[in-house]
């Protein structure tokens, strides 16, 4: 067990160091950054805010990590967020009650995921293309549900999901932390994680070895849909309204970025959910840091682009090959 913990620490060390450096830089420039206050039975402060605001991307990153580990990608998560947010808002205003509303929204997310999984696993369409369909059509469907308007609601129960607090932490943070722990335990305490990696490395070989890769792929996309649904509910609950046009817009890219920052290769195989979650926090820290620093938010995207480029260079198989070659020759 000790060896396992050490291995995990070595795996997530680069991400932890990056996060620490970013936080330390912000803290150095703004000494008050780490102040945490306790009021109204919950904690307040910039670090708590990062946990809270990073919730949608963190949730998406959990599902995205599993999808990317199978050598796939899920472009539809932003649109699925919009659909599920719209369903939650319209169901609660129609008077279905909170449990049924949540069930319907989460069910819709799973259905979207099953659809993607079916296209990828059964029809054998490339994941980018298969999920592109729902990405394009999904926002249209969401607008159909909200009838083009921003659907607002006043239900305190649903709003609690987005702005309530539990055990002194904001509800969104509690949700993504618990989902992250649950999924990480599920894939690492069972053989599921290994099987997912096997499918990602070589689908044909793992099928021949007896892994039911078709079922596994569909499950992975369904989990991604479920995570997107939860993220969509949080975003809608936070603003007490469903905005079909802007909810989750471009979040699929942030989620992919979080996974890549977390060191999971886009070429499939080995993955780490914890590293992806730290990646999501790195992205949110950069966002918050830029805001706190009073930098114009315009620079946000440029900085993100530079981070992606730096990681690309570090992850590049070509560079990796060159490093091995160097070591051999010396």
């Amino acid at each position, binding site marked *: 067990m000790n060896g396992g913990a050490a291995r995990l620490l070595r795996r997530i060390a680069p991400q932890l160091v990056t996060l620490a450096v970013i936080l330390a830089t912000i803290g150095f420039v703004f000494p008050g950054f780490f102040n945490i206050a306790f009021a109204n039975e919950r904690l307040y402060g910039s670090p708590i805010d990062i946990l809270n605001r990073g919730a949608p991307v963190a949730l998406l990153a959990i599902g995205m990590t599993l999808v990317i580990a199978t050598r796939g990608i899920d472009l539809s998560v932003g649109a699925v967020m919009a659909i599920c947010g719209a369903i939650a808002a319209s169901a609660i205003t129609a008077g279905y009650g909170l449990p049924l509303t949540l069930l319907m929204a989460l069910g819709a997310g799973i259905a979207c995921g099953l659809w993607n999984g079916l296209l990828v696993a059964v029809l054998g369409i490339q994941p980018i293309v298969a999920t592109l369909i729902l990405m394009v059509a999904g926002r*249209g469907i969401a607008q159909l549900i909200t009838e083009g308007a921003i659907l607002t609601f006043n239900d305190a129960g649903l709003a609690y999901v987005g702005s309530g607090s539990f055990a002194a932490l904001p509800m969104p943070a509690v949700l993504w932390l618990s989902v992250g722990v649950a999924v990480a335990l599920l894939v690492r305490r069972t053989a599921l994680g290994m099987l997912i990696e096997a499918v990602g490395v070589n689908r044909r070989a793992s099928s021949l070895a007896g892994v039911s890769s078709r079922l596994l792929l569909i499950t992975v996309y369904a989990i991604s849909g479920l995570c997107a649904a939860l993220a969509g509910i949080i975003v809608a609950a936070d603003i007490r309204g469903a905005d079909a046009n802007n909810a989750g817009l471009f979040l699929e890219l942030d989620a992919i970025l979080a996974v890549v920052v977390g060191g999971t290769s886009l070429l499939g195989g080995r993955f780490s959910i914890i590293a992806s979650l730290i990646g999501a926090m790195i992205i949110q820290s950069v966002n918050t840091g830029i805001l706190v620093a009073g930098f114009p938010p315009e620079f946000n*995207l440029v900085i993100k682009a530079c981070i992606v480029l730096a990681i690309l*260079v570090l992850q590049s198989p070509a560079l990796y090959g060159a490093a091995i070659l160097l070591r051999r020759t010396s």
Partner: protein
Amino acid sequence: MNPRLLPFLATVVIFVVAYVICWLQFPAMLSTRVIGNLLTDGAFLGIVAVGMTFVILSGGIDLSVGSVIAFSGVFVAVMLRDTGIHPVPVFVLLLAITTAFGAAMGLIIHVLQMPPFIVTLAGMFLARGMAYVLSVDSIPIAHPFYDWVQTAYWLMPGKGRLTLIGATMLAVFVAGILLAHRTRFGANVFALGGGVQTARLMGVPVGRTTVLIYALSGLLAGLSGIVFSFYTSAGYSLATVGVELDAIAAVVIGGTLLTGGSGFVAGTLIGVLIMGLIQTYITFDGTLSSWWTKIIIGALLLAFIVLQKALLDITAKRASAREAG
């Protein structure tokens, strides 16, 4: 018959049938005015879709084009506002920048061996970010040259206007068709889409071709940005969000295989026109909401992708049968 022609023919049939349905319901649809508007409204999308066709034919993807269009608009608007330079040299400078930008992405894709998807994603962030840095406000463009271009059109029979930007798109398509199907570069692009390893063994200069493909996409995205600035008379950093997806959809609906190696530039033009037609129908109808556009385009995408998949399976089976026999 060559089964590769089938997606292209399906696109043409869908376009003609859709147009006939529109015409039966609204006889006014069949006029050169509507056709002229289709070309004008689709101009910027069509131009950028030509570049996207080359990228997809080579088996890649370019997510940066929407951001590059927005950057181009803001760049032109800022230069015209803050300096006294005539638009034409500004355009030349801009096209040089966007071409270099595309070439740089192609170089990174080739040298670092990274998936085009993630490299162009970084490009998308960078271009949009640079547009924000230049200006977050919508900047109006007022210049005599712009007034001249905007009023330049050829009156078609039936009072339809073929505007200069619509004609520019048609010219780009003609050039694209010649480049793809009649030159060595075009043949190299198709070879690359068939498989990088095979292409290399055939003697295709893989690196140079990759860089040129993305440079071409950057160049056409810049040109599309210029056309868009004529279309809207403004530069705005939040404009053309998601155009890369529209361009990809137009290419796929046009019958180009998303895995690369097979397709037609002319099909992309039909794809752009189909998307314009849906929009026009919704405008004519007046009761339908514009979000139907997205759903119909999504359904068309699905239909074409499944069709392509079926065709691929058939040709693969035929090939293996030939090998066995």
